[in-house]
């Protein structure tokens, strides 16, 4: 690039930031930017003024340092400087800008200084700040961009401004929307009702008898929620691992004829909202469920609420998460090298001895991994405990009631959130250790001939006896879940009807065209809209992060990878609570908006996109990127013309995952929805809590249909990658 071109590129970010300070309102507007009424008040209103006006004539002097940094950066960009010197100066200006920006945003809130020591230091402040709006956001982004472009000029990130910008964007967004909210939980846990910082409070909150009591063991009353959560999670982990192992053994080591049907099981939990199984259990075992009715009719046993409590949640989680364990274990069982088993048999061990002394021990790390997956799924689960838990409280529901219930105790919610986070991270690190170091890697690069040894007869009979009835019951439950939507009143009137669907999804012809009069339409369209916005952004951010992590070398790469992995382990309930704490006051005041829900979707689901993208990208030869670079392809062009076309399958995968997860998630968004932005899942949960099962079931089925349609649409839209024959360029002569 020429010196002039370099100057022009360096000027772009400061110019953008300064333009935002002149042309956009700094603070968030009540009515948004749509009405354009703000344009007339840019220079004379405290609410919708631009930064220049606010700083110079409206008493907001604290905005001036940020503006000054932007100015300094613009001047640096224009001066005739050597490349490296310009880079250093730009990076310094940008960093100073970020510091000034963050300091004023955190230091000054709705009521002047945000902390007492600031008031003590500087005296009372005459002025206040609202949440950051368009102008502030653009100026902040510009400061980050200036740092990135400065570092790139100095030769960091391969000297590529785009890569530098992308790294800065990914890091900044993860810090802002994952790290910062979680940090806020920590702070909240120490604060009392007035917002004062009381260190002893956390200890007090965490040691509350309601959390840790063991009364249930002594026969008096209930145990603490922490024990409940752990006990349920351990049971769920053991149960799903055992069932998953039985399925995996049948699928890989027997001649069972319907193996392929078993694999369908693994798809079900992905496209069903997490509480559908719980709902089906109520239809079968609930007060007016089939079992109770039969017992009453046959033996005159009065209906019980037996299903509500530990046993109900446990059953529901077992049904819901066994497919996940199956998915994990099928890889583990296939990974045991048949050669080792054959070797064992040639050493005079019979099938049973081979199975118990060679195969099972080799699977141990995999079994531990499956257990921890079940454990983590269980403690993060919100839908089933809220639907079936009854008096059996676990951490995720307890947090929910602390925030939305009559208690309204944010400090307690934060402390419980921390506890849940600690459990999840503990299990996560344990799992990483087991998967990372403890596994006996039995899949090697060498060709592995040999046939998998069939299961010994006894083991096969056990596996079949456990797994097949279970599979049948799972199928039956899904069947009942569907039936529940097409009968009049479950338990009383089994007349077939479509009235629930009509109630939910009625469309009428009115004077002004169609009227979406069904009760579910509002939440349905909100869900579709928000998920459709979030899915592409999730995929984009995930793949961008994956590309950076796989293809670029930069300081802090390992830390960034770890951060994305970590955010995956944070339970949804914790994220939801954290978002409420972090984003309901300035500087980022977005609670109650659609934006916060979309952000929550994106940052909840991005880590999976990152993993998928990294896996796909490591199969694409790095020299293709480099070839593009030496052929004048700048980084964004390389991404667009070389990497993305080759990544189509991963794009489809993360789009589908982003959409489906956005539609089915409950735990995180249950804190974020409002009457205006109600989501399908939260709407259904409320119907279930109110006992309106017909509508809930009908709606769930509609959601499953929606997701199937969406999956097909995404497949069609993105298409396949065109590779000719799927042959790498390195495979030598094949004329």
């Amino acid at each position, binding site marked *: 690039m020429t010196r002039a071109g370099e100057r022009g590129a360096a000027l772009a970010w400061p110019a953008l930031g300064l333009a935002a300070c002149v042309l956009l309102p700094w603070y968030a507007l009540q009515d948004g930017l749509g009405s354009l009424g703000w344009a007339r008040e840019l220079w004379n209103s405290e609410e919708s003024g631009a930064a220049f006006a606010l700083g110079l004539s409206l008493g907001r002097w604290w905005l001036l340092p940020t503006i000054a940094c932007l100015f300094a950066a613009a001047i640096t960009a224009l001066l005739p400087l050597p490349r490296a010197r310009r880079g250093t100066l730009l990076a310094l200006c940008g960093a100073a800008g970020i510091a000034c920006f963050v300091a004023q945003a955190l230091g000054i809130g709705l009521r002047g200084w945000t902390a007492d020591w600031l008031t003590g230091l500087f005296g009372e402040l005459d002025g206040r700040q609202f949440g950051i709006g368009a102008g502030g956001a653009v100026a902040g982004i510009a400061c980050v961009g200036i740092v990135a472009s400065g570092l790139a000029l100095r030769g960091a990130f*391969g000297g590529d401004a785009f890569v530098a910008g992308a790294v800065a964007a990914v890091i900044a967004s993860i810090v802002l929307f994952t790290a910062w909210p979680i940090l806020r939980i920590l702070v909240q846990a120490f604060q009392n009702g007035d917002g004062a910082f009381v260190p002893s409070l956390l200890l007090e909150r965490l040691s509350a008898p309601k959390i840790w009591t063991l009364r249930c063991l002594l026969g008096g009353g209930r145990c603490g929620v922490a024990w409940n959560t752990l006990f349920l999670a351990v049971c769920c982990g053991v149960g799903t691992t055992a069932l998953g192992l039985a399925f995996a053994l049948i699928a890989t080591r027997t001649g069972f004829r319907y193996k392929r049907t078993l694999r369908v099981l693994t798809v079900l939990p992905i496209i069903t909202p997490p509480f559908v199984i719980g709902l089906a259990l109520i239809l079968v075992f609930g007060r007016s469920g089939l079992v109770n009715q039969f017992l009453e009719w046959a033996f005159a046993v009065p209906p019980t609420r037996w299903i509500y409590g530990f046993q109900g949640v446990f059953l529901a989680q077992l049904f819901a998460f066994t497919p996940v364990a199956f998915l994990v274990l099928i890889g583990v069982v296939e990974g045991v090298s048949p050669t080792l088993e054959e070797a064992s048999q040639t050493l005079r061990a019979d099938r049973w001895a081979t199975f118990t002394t060679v195969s099972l021990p080799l699977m141990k790390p995999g079994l531990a991994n499956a257990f921890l997956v079940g454990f983590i799924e269980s403690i993060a689960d919100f839908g089933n405990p809220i639907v079936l838990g009854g008096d059996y409280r676990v951490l995720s529901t307890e947090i929910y009631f602390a925030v939305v219930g009559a208690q309204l105790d944010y400090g307690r919610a934060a402390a419980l959130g921390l506890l849940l986070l600690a459990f999840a991270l503990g299990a996560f690190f344990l799992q990483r250790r087991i998967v990372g170091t403890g596994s006996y890697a039995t899949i090697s690069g060498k060709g592995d001939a040999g046939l998998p040894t069939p299961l010994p007869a006894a083991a096969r009979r056990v596996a079949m006896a456990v797994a097949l009835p279970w599979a049948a019951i799972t199928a039956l439950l899904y069947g009942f879940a569907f039936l529940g939507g097409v009968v009049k009143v479950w338990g009383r009137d089994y007349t077939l009807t479509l009235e629930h669907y009509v109630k939910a999804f009625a469309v009428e012809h009115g004077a002004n065209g169609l009227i979406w009069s069904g009760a579910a339409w509002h939440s349905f369209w909100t869900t579709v809209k928000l998920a459709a916005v979030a899915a592409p952004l999730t995929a984009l951010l995930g793949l961008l992060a994956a590309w950076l992590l796989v293809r670029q070398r930069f300081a802090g790469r390992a830390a960034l990878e770890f951060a994305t992995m970590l955010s995956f382990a944070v339970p949804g309930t914790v994220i939801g609570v954290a978002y409420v704490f972090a984003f309901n006051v300035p500087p980022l005041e977005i609670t109650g908006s659609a934006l916060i829900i979309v952000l929550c979707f994106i940052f909840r689901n991005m880590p999976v996109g990152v993993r998928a993208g990294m896996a796909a990208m490591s199969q694409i030869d790095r020299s293709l990127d480099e070839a593009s*670079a*030496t052929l004048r*392809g700048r980084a964004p*062009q390389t991404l667009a013309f070389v990497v993305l076309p080759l990544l189509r399958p991963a794009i489809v995968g993360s789009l589908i995952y982003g959409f489906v997860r956005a539609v089915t998630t409950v735990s995180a968004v249950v804190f974020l929805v409002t009457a205006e932005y109600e989501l399908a899942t939260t709407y259904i949960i409320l119907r279930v809590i109110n006992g309106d099962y017909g509508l809930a079931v009908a709606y769930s089925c509609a959601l499953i249909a929606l997701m199937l349609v969406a999956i097909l649409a995404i497949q069609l839209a993105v298409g396949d990658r065109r*590779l000719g*024959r799927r042959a790498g*360029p*390195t495979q030598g002569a094949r004329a």
Partner: protein
Amino acid sequence: MTQPAGVEFHNVVKRYGDVAAVTGVSFRVDAGTLVTLLGPSGCGKTTTLRMIAGLELASEGRIEIAGRDVTAVGATQRDVSMVFQSYALFPHMSVLENVCYGLRRSGIAREEAGRRAREGLAQVGLAGYEERQPSELSGGQQQRVAVARALVLRPSVLLFDEPLSNLDARLRRQMRQEIRTLQQSLGLTVVYVTHDQQEAMAVSDRIIVMNKGAIEQDGTPRDLYERPATPFLARFMGESNPATGIARPLGNGRIAVRLGEAEIAVASPRVVSGSVTVAIRPETVRVESRVPNSGGLTGRVEAASYVGTHMEYGIATTVGSLFVVCPRVERPLPVGHEVDLLLEPRGVILVDG
């Protein structure tokens, strides 16, 4: 279109963490010449090439292309292009799209890019293959596409990273000749990386031999072969036998080296005496049946193998076991045979004295 330009390295260092892959390298590549970076694997030659390309940025030092400091400039903005070892043809594009890629990214209109790409393909003898997919081409053809793709940009420097290593021996010889012909007819500046000493000698104006991240010697192919500066070079540039002899000055820029029973006068820029290390080129030694007082080094055949074009002998002598190549294949000398080895001055190279 840009003029072919020179490349200069000034004390360039490349570190990965604590490990230095290249340790303080300085050299010059003149415009319009073909210079080869040669060395064993892990010697830093590919890293050096990638630093010219801008795919790696130097940790220290200065890199200039066409007299301009490009040390902190990334690959896209340097006026260089590169032919990769794996060819790196984009598998989702046709041959023509591959060759057009760089032209289109440089902002050249579609028609013009297409015209120049076809021209480039014709230059490498692939006219008519435009619509094929890379996977439908043979290895040699893929190689030509990769060359055409780099060539059509008329870069000021063209880089080759072991371009022939995926081809069989016959095709390799043909391709290296084609690359040399193209380079000379177009007057290109080319930097070429290989670990094959013969390939390097065949194509290069100059060879830079690297070892352990540093430059071992820099010179014309003849310089390096006939006057290797270090024992490493004597070993690496062709076969050679290390041996220890006793030197005494003869004056006139020559010294006499005694090797066992033989004494031979060799050229030496410096006057040395006493014990010296020499490298003996196997193809310069004449093997004769033993006769008294031949003035040769006496020895006994330990191993003899017939490899078609010549005989290879292992011969035990008083200065150690020597590997010798003999063009006479009609009457091979049997193992155990007593022989005289007649040395030639050009085949005995003083390497550390």
